[in-house]
């Protein structure tokens, strides 16, 4: 245990990102002003890394390597806006969300929330800070204690953070918030199992909102819900944002959902951000090969669009984050892979598509691909099965 802690501490020591951040703060880490007049970032991540040690051996408990779940992510979430984080399972998006709340230990980098670096806060202060950063979890049933009634679930956080003087006032606030998220007033004394999936997700949202947070981290807020219920919850999140000025970090695998709700979208692959842009810009002109492939893989509920949809079929599966490919993480599956640079030089997230678009992409060849001078090496959209 101590061995790995000292190892991770020494790993975080020479990290340039964490060293520079305490002084320069958001200015150094806000390279992406979104379109229009950008509000100041509420949350800024710089060089965030979360590595999990891989252990082996019973007696010596050696650390044999690290799973690089999040490996150097820098992004900023503007106040009052929604930042959408998409990626496939295993790309580290959930770990990133949990790291912001320090629910998992941060290996390196900084998480600056409203001027404070959360990564450096002592545990006690972090606990107090969590009132302003709340999380909505994917599985509404799994994240609500089945033996607590709704009032008890919602009042627990309030009592911990000293919100509301006494039970009566808390109950009033809970009533107000339940009404706000569209739950009947009689829900107070009921238990989670008595509610439908959509209603449970509303309880999860109410549980977060009752603490009057500034930032809501929604981890797959609708993926456990039926299609017709998803829209209800998405609309509710939007209404709440408008009414209460909330800032969202929405983590999801469903691109259509993320696009619908987000102002700025970041695409993650194997622990790092490969592309970031305002919603329309990203979906209009995706620049990273992975984003292109991801978007072309989403089926559209319209036969006419489906029949002419160009499909970029990726070969193979996600490589292991314990042993990520050298160079560009995506080069093992990339249809545009080039003999030079891709395999040995890790691309940085750099501005693309002109100033003012707020577009950043981590690909050596983004310009050439956009201009059409680079052709994909595999055959695209061929109606035959692609072999790995």
């Amino acid at each position, binding site marked *: 245990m101590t061995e790995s802690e000292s190892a991770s501490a020494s790993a975080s020591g020479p990290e340039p990102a964490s060293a520079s951040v305490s002084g320069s703060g958001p200015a150094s880490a806000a390279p992406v002003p979104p379109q229009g007049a950008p509000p100041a970032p509420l949350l800024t991540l710089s060089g965030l890394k979360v590595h999990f040690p891989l252990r082996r051996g019973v007696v010596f408990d050696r650390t044999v390597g690290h799973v690089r779940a999040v490996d150097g992510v820098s992004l900023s979430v503007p106040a009052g806006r929604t930042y959408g984080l998409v990626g*496939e*399972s295993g790309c580290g998006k959930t770990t990133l969300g949990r790291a912001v709340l320090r629910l998992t230990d941060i290996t390196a980098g900084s998480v600056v929330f409203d001027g404070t670096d959360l990564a450096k806060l002592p545990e006690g202060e972090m606990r107090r800070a969590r009132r302003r950063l709340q999380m909505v979890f994917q599985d509404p049933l799994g994240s609500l204690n089945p033996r607590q009634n709704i009032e008890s679930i919602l009042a627990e956080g309030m009592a911990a953070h000293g919100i509301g003087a006494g039970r009566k006032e808390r109950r009033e606030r809970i009533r107000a918030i339940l009404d706000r998220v569209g739950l009947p007033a009689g829900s107070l004394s*009921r238990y989670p199992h*008595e*509610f*439908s*999936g*959509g*209603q449970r997700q509303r309880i999860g949202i109410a549980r977060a909102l009752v603490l009057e947070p500034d930032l809501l981290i929604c981890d797959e807020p609708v993926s456990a819900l*039926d*299609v*017709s*219920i*998803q*829209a*209800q919850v*998405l*609309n509710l999140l*939007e209404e709440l944002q408008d009414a209460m000025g909330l800032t969202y970090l929405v983590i999801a*695998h469903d*691109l*259509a*959902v993320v*696009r*619908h709700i987000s102002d700025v979208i970041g695409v993650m692959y194997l622990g790092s951000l490969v592309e970031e842009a305002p*919603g*329309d810009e990203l*979906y209009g002109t995706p620049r990273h090969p992975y984003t292109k*492939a*991801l*978007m*072309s*893989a*989403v*089926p*559209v*509920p*319209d*036969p*006419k*669009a*489906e*029949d002419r*949809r160009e*499909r970029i*079929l*990726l070969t193979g*599966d*996600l490589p292991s984050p314990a042993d990520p490919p050298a160079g560009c993480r995506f080069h093992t599956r990339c249809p545009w892979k080039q003999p030079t640079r891709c395999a040995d030089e890790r691309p940085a997230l750099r501005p693309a598509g002109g100033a003012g678009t707020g577009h950043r992409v981590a690909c050596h060849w983004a310009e050439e691909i956009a201009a059409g001078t680079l052709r994909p090496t595999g055959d695209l959209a061929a*109606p*035959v*099965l*692609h*072999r*790995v």
Partner: protein
Amino acid sequence: MTTRLLTVEDLTVTFTARGRRDVTAVSGVSFDIGAGEVVGLVGESGCGKSVTSLALMGLLPRRGVRTGGRALLDGSTDLLALDDARIRDLRGTQLAMVFQDPLSSLNPVVPIGVQVTEILRRHRGLRGERARAEAAHLLDRVGIPDPARRLKEYPHQLSGGMRQRALIAMAVACAPRLLIADEPTTALDVTIQAQILELLRELVDQEGTALLMITHDLGVVAGLCDRVNVLYAGKVVEAAARRPLFAAPAHPYTHGLLASIPRLDAPRGQPLKPIRGSVNDTIAWAEGCAFAPRCDHFSPACLEGTPAQAPAPDAAVPGPRSHLVRCVHPVNTATAPDAARRDGQPRPGHPPHPPSEPPGAAPAASATKEKAE
């Protein structure tokens, strides 16, 4: 008309338990599939789509389940009437199934190779080296690299997409004529989903396998299915070829589903139009339309017994395989085909019922809500 590969007539599945009310999961579902055809069963959780597939495969428990109707293979063999031994012979050779969760459908303590060759031994009588060679060939065919090595591995050593490929390899091992895929891509990532859908499409195109695709994802349906059946609360509420269905959804439920999905190809910023309530807000089909408590086009006429299945407003030639809808007030989108997709505003052709809660709906809706809670 030629005999269809599978004709399902009036399939009804009721779960019974002593001291409890009977639950009818599927009530009177009819559809048919021809060779090389892809038919979709679409609906949300609890609509009866999985129970339908289990009933066809003879995988429902015998006790506590009452099935009615017929499911004719080649117009003669009724799958629902077969005894266990007979249906076991058909499973694998004539019918095969791919389940949603590949990890729990595979035996975790048995190598992949043994699980694949088991089918080859049971149905094709292959043994030893010949069975192993055939298993490797099958894995290769579904795009699993290095099949000889994979045969020795256990399910946990394979990735999710790879496991689903292995399941498909097992399903097609005896060249079944009908493949039932129950949410085959729901547990997978989108890029892997695209690979698996491509594989299924290839099987249908090359082998002429009929595919019954069970899914909740209208996007998957739009790209893959020839004909689509939309299920709600155990009944087919709308059935059509895929193009008419998406161009002119006639049932308010289908219409509402399409309006409530965020779409990648639509302009951003349009608010979603959710269907209100949840699937628990329902009434028995015997009393009226089960969707009535959630429907924007509700009228008292909806509560006068089960609505009959009738040709949709846009059905050119009325017939058993044209566009059918089970609704008293079908949505007529023929007059405004483009507006049909997104907005829920009343259009010419709509019945002039107010979209807000009509007076008659309140008691029914609240009554069912109380029951559900």
